[in-house]
């Protein structure tokens, strides 16, 4: 079994179709929706984690792309300006999945993009406003 975290962008005409159900039913892919912004008639965005055999995930991604869904790896969507960071730690206070951590003895912010669910809490929590999350 493999896991893959993706950001899916749905064109308005696809938003109304039962895409996630199809992934589960037809492709045998466990689909965990971590975050979603979907409204009828608008472009929809969804952060999902797919869990299945690698070949099944590939087939599911092909299916999505054929529907017109833009499929991107989720890890590209959080960005932190390391050069401007003062390593205060305020962002780590709100990071429940512990993607942002600060620890002794270095006391430097470490960002583990694999753990990030792109919730965006750190964007508000950063006093220097140097984190951006595009979801």
């Amino acid at each position, binding site marked *: 079994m493999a896991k893959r975290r993706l950001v899916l962008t749905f064109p308005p005409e696809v938003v109304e179709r039962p895409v996630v159900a199809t992934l589960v039913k037809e492709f045998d892919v466990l689909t965990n929706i971590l975050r979603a912004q979907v409204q009828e008639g608008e472009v929809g965005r969804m952060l999902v984690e797919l869990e299945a055999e690698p070949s099944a995930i590939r087939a599911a991604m092909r299916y999505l792309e054929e529907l017109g869904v833009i499929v991107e790896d989720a890890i590209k969507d959080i960005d932190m300006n390391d050069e401007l960071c003062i390593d205060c730690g305020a962002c780590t206070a709100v990071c*429940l999945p512990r993607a942002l951590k600060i620890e002794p003895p270095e006391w430097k912010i470490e960002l583990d993009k694999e753990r990030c669910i792109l919730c965006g809490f750190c964007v*508000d929590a950063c*006093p220097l406003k140097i984190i951006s999350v595009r979801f």
Partner: protein
Amino acid sequence: MAKTIEEINERIKKGEAVVLTADEMTRFVREEGAAQASKKVDVVTTGTFGPMCSSGAFINLGHSDPPMKMHRVWLNDVPVCADLAAVDIYIGATALSDTEGMNYGGGHLIEDLLKGKWLRLKASAIPTDCYPRREIQTYINLESVNEAFLFNPRNAYQNYVCATNGSDRTLYTYMGVLIPGYGNVTYSSAGALSPLLNDPYYRTIGVGTRVFLGGAPGYVAWHGTQHRPSVERTPRGVPVGPGGTLSLIADMKKMSHEFIRAARFHRYGVSLYVGIGVPIPILDEEMASFTGVGDDEIYTYIYDYSEPTRSRKPLKKVSYAELHSGNVEIMGKKAITAPISSIRMAKRIAQVLRDWIKSGEFLLTEPVQKLPTEGTLNTLEIRDRGEG
């Protein structure tokens, strides 16, 4: 054997002084003992880099022609205090922009000046015979103005409280974003690196002590506002929670924007991260013992910030060693702990100050007046009349 500051300065000038950062000193004292450390170490350098709202800059803008007694003044649309002589102003760190609100403020003006940026100056006045000008619009920068110095009424808090949130909604505070249901605990002290925690009874830090402020040499001008020495202390004298404070002054033209950074606390407002380092002369065994303090010996209290009252009760006492572990149990629940002040930068400042002293360019000063060692805070009561 006791040393004097004069003797230590002689050793600094000869390049013989032994200077350790506060975290190095903690390890040294634990390994060798305070008696031995007092013989071997001359100076311990401390550091802190946290948001300090009670900060600001005095600036003399220079006179225009014809001259003007500025009454209302804005820099980049941020109102600044002009209630002084004609062209003296004070930029308060927390002032907010008239046009951008909490997104830009006094802290940003100070950082932008240090970066060499031009600021848009707008001022109005009531004309007088000696100052006929009514309005002005121009640009200034750090080079174009006369004096520019930070004069911060309250910096370098000797310890501080921790914040948590027992309510069911997210709180946006100067202690960061607090997650509902005791989801996190934030703290804002450099702990064992912090200046006043290494000299708990202000034996060496006093009015006139030369310090590092924002990358420049500066001075302790006075005890800071809300200086509160009469607080609960550990057997070694370390305040449990907020204690003493310092009022600091230094020339902005010698500062670096690496050590002074504007901050925006979401839905709270603008503040300023201020970098401070204070050298502590190891005069005797007691000073060695004080500077040997570790994060496991410094305690503070956690408060529920969802109770916006002066009389809220502490939930729990914790040590900085516990806070540094990444989580702490509160109300039967494991909560994330997170610093708001930068411990990495605090260490860096202690190292820079150590290097300044080692190179002989920074000598220690004898305080000209002691900070108060007793005293507590008054409160602001709602009165019907000005008597009683």
